[in-house]
C-alpha cells in the first residue's frame, strides 16, 4: 500500500489541469540520446547504474517518435546538423532540447578553426537548458535535467499567461 492509498483514502485531490499535465510531463521526460562525441560517454554513464537516470523518470528511447527530450551530447558538425534538425522535427510535441557540453553550446574547442563545426546547436534548434563542461560530469547533466523539470513545471497550457 502506497501513501496515496493509506493517507488519502476516500479523499479527493484538487489541482489545476496545468499542474497535473506539467507533473506528468516533468515526471517522465524520455530522452532521445543524441550522442555525438565524448559527451555521449558521460551521458551513457549518467544512464548507467551508478547515477541511474531511471530514478528521475528518464530513459533513452531509440526513436524520436517516442521521446520528449533531445540531449545533444557532443560536437555538432555541419553535416550532422541537417540530420539533427530532421530528427528534432520528427519528435512529437511537447519537445525539449538539452544542449550538453561546450561543443553543442557554442562550438567548444572548434569555435575558431572548426570549418566543419556548427557553433552551437541553438543555431538550428531551440535549446531549453545548456549544460556547460567539457565534458560535463553526470552530476551536471542531472542538474540540467532537474532545471528542465523546473521549467516544465512552470508551463501554462490552459490558464492565461501572466
Amino acid at each position: 500500500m502506497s501513501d496515496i492509498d493509506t493517507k488519502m483514502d476516500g479523499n479527493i485531490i484538487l489541482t489545476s489541469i496545468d499542474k497535473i499535465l506539467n507533473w506528468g510531463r516533468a515526471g517522465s521526460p524520455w530522452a532521445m540520446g543524441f550522442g555525438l562525441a565524448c559527451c555521449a560517454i558521460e551521458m551513457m554513464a549518467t544512464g548507467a547504474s551508478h547515477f541511474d537516470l531511471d530514478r528521475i523518470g528518464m530513459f533513452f528511447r531509440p526513436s524520436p517518435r517516442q521521446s520528449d527530450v533531445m540531449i545533444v551530447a557532443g560536437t555538432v558538425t555541419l553535416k550532422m546538423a541537417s540530420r539533427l534538425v530532421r530528427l528534432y522535427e520528427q519528435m512529437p510535441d511537447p519537445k525539449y532540447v538539452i544542449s550538453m557540453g561546450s561543443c553543442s553550446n557554442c562550438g567548444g574547442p572548434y569555435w575558431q578553426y572548426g570549418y566543419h563545426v556548427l557553433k552551437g546547436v541553438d543555431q538550428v534548434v531551440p535549446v531549453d537548458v545548456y549544460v556547460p563542461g567539457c565534458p560535463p560530469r553526470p552530476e551536471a547533466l542531472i542538474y540540467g535535467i532537474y532545471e528542465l523539470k523546473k521549467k516544465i513545471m512552470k508551463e501554462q497550457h490552459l490558464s492565461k499567461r501572466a
Partner: protein
Amino acid sequence: MTEKEIFERLLEKFKDAIGEFNEEVIQPFATIKAAEVEKVCTYLRDNEAFEFDWLSNLSAVHYPHSEEEQAEQKEDELEVVYHLYSFKHNHKMILKTRVPVSNPKIPSVAMLWRTADWHEREAYDLLGVEFTDHPDLRRILLPEDWEGFPLRKDYVTPQTYNNMTVPYPEEKGDLHDE
C-alpha cells in the same frame, strides 16, 4: 631488412622511378615518382624478399611554396606518404611521393591493399589528391556537396553552409579579448 637495404633493392630494380633516401630522420623514407607508385608497391607487396602485406597508413600533406620558391614560380605540392609493414619479415618502409597541386594525380593502391580505399578517399576529401583507378573516389568525411579541400594551407573557411553560419556568431559574445 633495413630501410636502407630495401631502398637499394628498389633502386636496382626501378632506377629512375626511385628518388633519394633520407635516414637522418627517426623514420627513414624513400621518395618515389608519383606515376610509378603502383608498380613499386606491387613489387614490394608480392616479392618474397619484402612481402609488405600491410599498409599501416596512407596520408597526405600540402606543401605550399616558400617565398623563394615563389620567385622561381614553383608550384605548391601535395605529398602522399605510404607506411608499409610486413608481418612476415617484421620490417617496415616509408615511401613518399609528390605531385603538383594543379595536376594531383597518383595511381591508386586500393587494389593492392583494400585498406587504402578509405585512406585514399580521406586524402581526396581533405586535400584533393586524385587517385586514378580508385574504385570509388568520393568524399568520405565531409558532406558530398562540400566545396574545396579544407586541409590545404590556402583553404578559406566558408561563411555559410546550407544556410548555417560557419564562423563563430557575434551574438555569442567576443572571445577575442585577452
